[in-house]
């Protein structure tokens, strides 16, 4: 089954690791950020430290070793605000642990991942904010929902409604009444009159 999944899905198997079981509903929230990040003159990367746990011998951490040998120095040079720890552990599966500024922690198993996938996961942790999986209730967040004023039932209504006593005779009739046959006859009659006089 797992091999079948790998064939159809481009992301590595770890991507579908769900924090919550499928029997329960995933907890939901609105979009939020820590400390209104991105608003001032600078942006703060939320990933504080990255720990790569790796075995020097096992085949499962082959890709991880490759990544460390080839890409780690480059990564650390490009992102000096992230502290990277490499923690060799004998005969254990490789792991990636990200710790964030807000105190959250993300853990990703890297068994049997190749170099590209590991690079993808490291950058995925780098660009995240650190909070666990959520279902987003809305695709946007705003603090000022309306600038031109929120609609109320009395927008675009006449102002004298409070001064009237109900039932009011002026408000019973239609606003744009239909032309009745009687009125048409009367109009024709008046036209005839004016024609005769002229």
């Amino acid at each position, binding site marked *: *089954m797992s091999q079948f*999944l790998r064939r*159809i*899905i481009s*992301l590595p198997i770890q*991507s*579908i*690791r*769900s924090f919550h079981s*499928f029997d329960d509903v*995933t907890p939901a929230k609105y*979009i939020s*950020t820590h400390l*209104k*990040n*991105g*608003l001032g003159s600078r*942006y703060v*990367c*939320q990933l504080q430290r990255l720990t790569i746990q790796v075995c020097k011998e096992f085949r499962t951490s082959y890709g991880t070793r490759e990544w460390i040998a080839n890409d780690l120095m480059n990564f650390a040079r490009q992102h000096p605000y992230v502290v990277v720890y490499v923690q060799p552990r004998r005969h254990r599966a490789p792991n990636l642990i990200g710790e964030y500024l807000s105190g959250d922690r993300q853990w990703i198993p890297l068994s049997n991942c190749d170099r590209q996938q590991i690079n993808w996961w490291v*950058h*995925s942790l*780098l*660009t*995240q*904010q650190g909070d666990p*999986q*959520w*279902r*987003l209730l809305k*695709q*946007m*967040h*705003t*603090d*000022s929902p309306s*600038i*031109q*004023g929120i609609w109320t039932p009395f927008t675009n209504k006449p102002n004298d409604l409070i001064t009237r006593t109900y039932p009011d005779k002026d408000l019973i009739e239609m606003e*744009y009444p*239909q*032309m009745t046959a009687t009125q048409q006859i009367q109009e024709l009659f008046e036209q005839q009159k004016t024609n005769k006089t002229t």
Partner: protein
Amino acid sequence: MFIRTIPKFVPDNIHHDKEVQPLYNKVNNLVKDKYQNRLFAVIQIGNEQRKVTTEDIICKGDEFHPTIGDRIRFEKVLLVGSSDFTIIGRPILDRNFVRVEGIVIEKTLSQTQMDYWYAPRKKKVGQRHFLWRDPLTMIRITNIEILEPIPGTNQSNS
């Protein structure tokens, strides 16, 4: 059935200008008083339109090349307005006229979504699970400003 008059289209441009120029001037004067009134805009991002003001976050649910900390300028601005006026583009506003900027603050994955298919067949043949997570990009709008008077008016350069 209802008695209703539809205003006719008047090709007379001079008359139109006479009526509309004072309105343009009024809006231009409002715009000169920069940063006093909050502006909002309707921008197009990835085939969908979003109404944004400064400081709000929009979520783009697809692959998106910029990474965190990248500042983006949205060039497809359909509409910009404040509490007193609204300027609508036909269909988009000039890029020299209005500037809407954002910053990518987060690139994450959505919750794990599941598609389950079942057909009553033999063991394990008629079952298929599909599990996936969508990439999400959170963009914060940092700046909306009007750079110059409305194009096509007396006060504008063009």
